[in-house]
């Protein structure tokens, strides 16, 4: 399959460790690609490069085989965008804004826009300045999606929407996905990325830490169980069986373990000898996956910090 978006070694250094560093990823045609990360981690900066609003310091950004900075106008013919910050032009109401936007897009057929308006239950005749955050977001969604182009770039598109509307919006995204569109979206909500995306990138301090495939996570061969024991003896004895323990909560005599699917019957056999309070399966999801990844990152950092501090101590001794 052909790559719609290709980003190689993209770097934009704003100084003081801010910016994005050495970003590399690609998005295939028809794929839905997500970004997740804390505030200020660099999601929006990457998206701005894709849109040609920022010029890369290092590396390459290609969209549809064209340079995102130089050919940004050409690229926009097949790209739709919902900006992260919703601020409308100085116009009266939603209808004027949408019509104006259609003029800019040279769009004559408003059928799809009408469909979106109905689906989102938007009243576009409201005054733009008095709209609530959710209404503004809906208006922005309609304005971006109405042209029905092949590539959709969304920067935190669900902020401000109530839970019901979020569902509706995700439905729309899934519809678009079915049409075969390539979608890139950033979000802070794992669940919505999980329902829509094929792959999700985790960004931390301007670096891509991990790119996870949702399919892989869902169809993982591992199963997670949470087990609580009745007394301390059993709790300690279980440890000797050498199952892979992910999390230990001594207070409650609790373990969370991960085992491959084929060892489930062995586990239950072993557990016959212990007095349990309960056992429950913990479903694996994106959030858990990334938490594991982050834990590893922090552990590595701590180790390296300790090593470096030990070195410093040695230096001091000398």
């Amino acid at each position, binding site marked *: 399959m052909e790559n719609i978006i290709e980003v190689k070694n993209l770097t934009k250094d704003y100084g003081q460790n801010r910016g994005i560093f050495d970003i590399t990823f690609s998005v295939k045609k028809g794929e839905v690609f997500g970004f997740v990360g804390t505030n200020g981690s660099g999601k929006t900066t990457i998206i701005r490069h894709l849109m040609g*609003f920022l010029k890369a310091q290092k590396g390459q950004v290609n969209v549809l085989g064209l340079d995102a900075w130089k050919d940004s106008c050409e690229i926009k013919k097949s790209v739709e965008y919902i900006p992260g910050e919703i601020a409308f032009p*100085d116009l009266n109401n939603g209808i004027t804004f949408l019509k104006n936007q259609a*003029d800019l*897009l040279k769009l004559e057929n408003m059928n799809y826009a009408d469909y979106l308006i109905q689906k989102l239950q938007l009243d576009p005749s409201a005054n733009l300045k008095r709209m609530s955050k959710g209404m503004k977001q809906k208006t922005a969604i309609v304005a971006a999606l109405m042209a029905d182009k092949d590539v959709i770039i969304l920067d935190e598109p669900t902020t401000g929407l109530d839970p019901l509307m979020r569902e509706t919006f995700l439905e729309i995204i899934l519809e678009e996905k079915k049409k075969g569109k390539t979608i890139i979206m950033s979000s802070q909500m794992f669940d919505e990325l999980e329902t829509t995306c094929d792959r999700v990138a985790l960004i931390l301090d301007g670096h891509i830490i991990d790119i996870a495939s949702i399919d892989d996570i869902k169809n993982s061969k591992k199963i997670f169980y949470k087990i609580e024991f009745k007394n301390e003896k059993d709790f300690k004895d279980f440890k000797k069986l050498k199952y892979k323990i992910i999390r230990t909560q001594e207070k409650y005599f609790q373990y969370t373990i991960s085992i491959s699917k084929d060892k489930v019957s062995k586990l239950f056999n072993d557990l016959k000898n212990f007095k349990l309070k309960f056992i429950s399966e913990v479903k694996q999801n994106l959030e858990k996956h990334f938490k594991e990844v982050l834990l590893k990152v922090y552990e590595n950092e701590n180790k390296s910090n300790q090593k470096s501090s030990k070195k410093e101590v040695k230096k001091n001794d000398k």
Partner: protein
Amino acid sequence: MINKALFKQSCKANWVKWLAVTLSTCIMLMIVIIVLGNLGINDIRDSLKDVFVQADQESYLKENSVDGYELYLTSVDGYSVLYAKAVYMPSLQQSFNDAVTEFEEYYGEGSATKEIRDNQIIPQLVSVIISNPMFAGAFVGMDDATVTMFLTTYLTVYSDNQLNGTSKTNDEILQETYAKMVYQNAYQQEIVSGKTEEEAFTSAIFAKSVALDAAKEYTKNSINPEFDYSQVATNCVNLLIQEQAEQSFAGSDLSEDEIKQQGVAAKVISNTAITTYLLWYNQLMEGQEETPEIVLQAKTEAKNQATKSISDQIPEKVAVALQELGNMDIYGLIIGSIFYKIAGLLLPMVFVIMTANGLLAGQVDSGSMAYVLSTPTKRRTVTVTQLAYLAFALFSMFAMLTIFSVIAVAIAGGNSFAINFGEILLLNLGAYVTMFAIAGFCFMCSALFNTTKHSLSIGGGLTIFSLVCTILGLFGSAVVPSAMRISAMNFFNYLSIITLFDTVSILDGTLSFLWKLAILAGIGLIGIIVGVFRFDKKDLPL
């Protein structure tokens, strides 16, 4: 290059602002031109100017009176010389009559016309007489030119008397001869001293009247060598001045009574001048020897004192200041320097600052520019479209202002108004070019900065700074009369680009405003070019 949808969007976003600014500026201008025009703000100036014109006239009148008085006395002396020669006149007349008879005998009765007499008989006879030693002896003490002039004039008067059938006595003929000679001398003197023919004619006529009166008076009192002429001289001059004043008002729209009043006023002024002159003269001559130098000095000084007018009596600096105030063009100051350079620019400036910021920096700052740039629209198209809108809005604003100002001038009196149609059109053009420069600069700031904060504080800040400097600089500029001027304040004019809008040059009809406007247009263009190219290349936080 221009995107219609974006242009429409900018129109929709800014039309209220545009309308408010345009209408209020137009109304302001109408009020300034029409209402102040009808109130007659130039009245005070005109009356001040009148004071100085009257003062000049008064001074002129007084000078004439004193000169006339002196001329009268000189004429009495001068005529006494001629009067002593009166005994020779009958034989002169006889010689002339003989010459005429001889001519007519040869050419026939009546052939000696006035022309023949004036151009042939009299000159021939005069040259014969002058070369005759017997007659020459009669004119001892007079130079040849004067004698020739006297004889020619006398014979002309005598001959005219014969031809016209007016039976003048010998005394009258002599008196008229003298008056004519004085007239010719005065006329030549005035012409030599650079006066126009008309002025020379007027003062020569006056001199002639004085001389004739003096000659008559002398004839009357010739038996009494001790007669004091000063009183008659004063009376004579007073009357002549009165007559002259009445004549000068003759063709005017004043009534007969008013003309008489003017005449009496002139007579009073004349009398005062002569009296003052005599008093000063006597005062100055007291205890002094009467040498010609001292007398002349005393006369000059006395004349100076006697002919002083109001403007001579107030301190020189105050007089200069008042005179400047009288000559000041209040309309030029209010419409040119205050309205078009300050008051009328303020609101368009606020419009330009806000709009230029809102067209680029404001939209980048808020993020709404993303909706434009996420459509297939080039950044260059955005800048050029927004620029086109700004220029169009400004142009239509000043087109409205031009229409309103032309209407206002038409109502205020058209071309007879202090500021004519050509000048008001140039003022509007100048103001547009000035605003174009400011708009170019503000647009550049809007394109350079990503935040409203920076764009407004640099673009708007410097623009308002310029305006404030122009206000402060006004108090040091030459359009303000020197009494109110603080020349150090002129320094502020060098800090403001509005100074390049030279309203004074426009209203004076000089051309130096043209190159200054060219510089302003250049500033605007540079701002635009820098802004457009920079916006293409910068990072946008959208």
